[in-house]
């Protein structure tokens, strides 16, 4: 940032200053309240789904997480396909992106969007365009954390 500023003429700096002053302030509090309710609602539905699996399919509280996530991704496919998830996203911001349905939406909307380019190169190649970074950093950080913990365990520290 600092090196960028140095190369600007005084007028450009003045303009940037002016621009910053007139930039629309984000309604942080309002956005947070919306994110809280939308995100909470997704988790509420998730809780209901996991109770469904616990009572009807003999899952335990511990193992119900997996089928619940899969079911939520399925809901996400329907909502994305009918164009409802976009609207929820505009309203809820992070409240719709952070739950696993947002991950599903990223994968599914990318694959629907690119189907015109064909199923192999379009859908197959672009499916993880948006969600890929989540998988990459999730896997890599999990690898580091698990590696450290395992090594500490082998050396008898933990």
């Amino acid at each position: 940032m600092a090196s960028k500023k140095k190369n600007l003429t005084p007028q450009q700096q003045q303009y940037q200053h002016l621009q910053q002053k007139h930039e629309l302030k984000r309604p942080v509090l309002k956005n947070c309240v919306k994110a809280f309710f939308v995100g909470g609602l997704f988790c509420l539905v998730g809780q209901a789904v996991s109770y469904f699996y616990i009572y009807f399919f003999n899952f335990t509280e511990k193992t119900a997480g997996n089928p619940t996530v899969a079911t939520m991704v399925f809901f996400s496919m329907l909502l994305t396909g009918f164009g409802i998830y976009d609207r929820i996203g505009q309203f809820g911001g992070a409240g719709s992106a952070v739950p696993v349905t947002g991950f599903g939406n990223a994968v599914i909307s990318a694959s629907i969007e690119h189907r015109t380019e064909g199923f192999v190169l379009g859908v197959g190649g672009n499916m993880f365009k948006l969600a890929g970074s989540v998988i990459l950093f999730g896997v890599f950080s999990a690898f580091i954390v698990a590696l450290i913990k395992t090594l500490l365990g082998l050396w008898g520290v933990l």
Partner: protein
Amino acid sequence: MLPMFFWAFVVGGLICVIGQLLLDVAKLTPGHTLSLLVVAGAVLDGFDLYEPLIDFAGAGATIPITSFGNSLVHGALQEAKLHGLVGVLTGMFEVTSSGISAAIIFGFIGALIFKPKG
């Protein structure tokens, strides 16, 4: 059962508020925000802090993307206990397979039946 619904709502909502703050205050892109949350989940599980949260809030902790990092670490550690260091690699997707396989399968089905809009 009812308090579980309440805490799922509150904890899940709060994690989303953290995400919203990263977007609005720290001005990160959605991609950066989600990646950061996943890493946070993995690190929290490294300190054994995420599992108590799941016991406490149920889906409030398993539905947000942070649980993805948590279950990746969990799978890796589970296998590492059985097979030593190699298990860290082989066990990575042991627990969390359903999220990714569901995303791939439903993503493809979605592309088959839905047409892009606008």
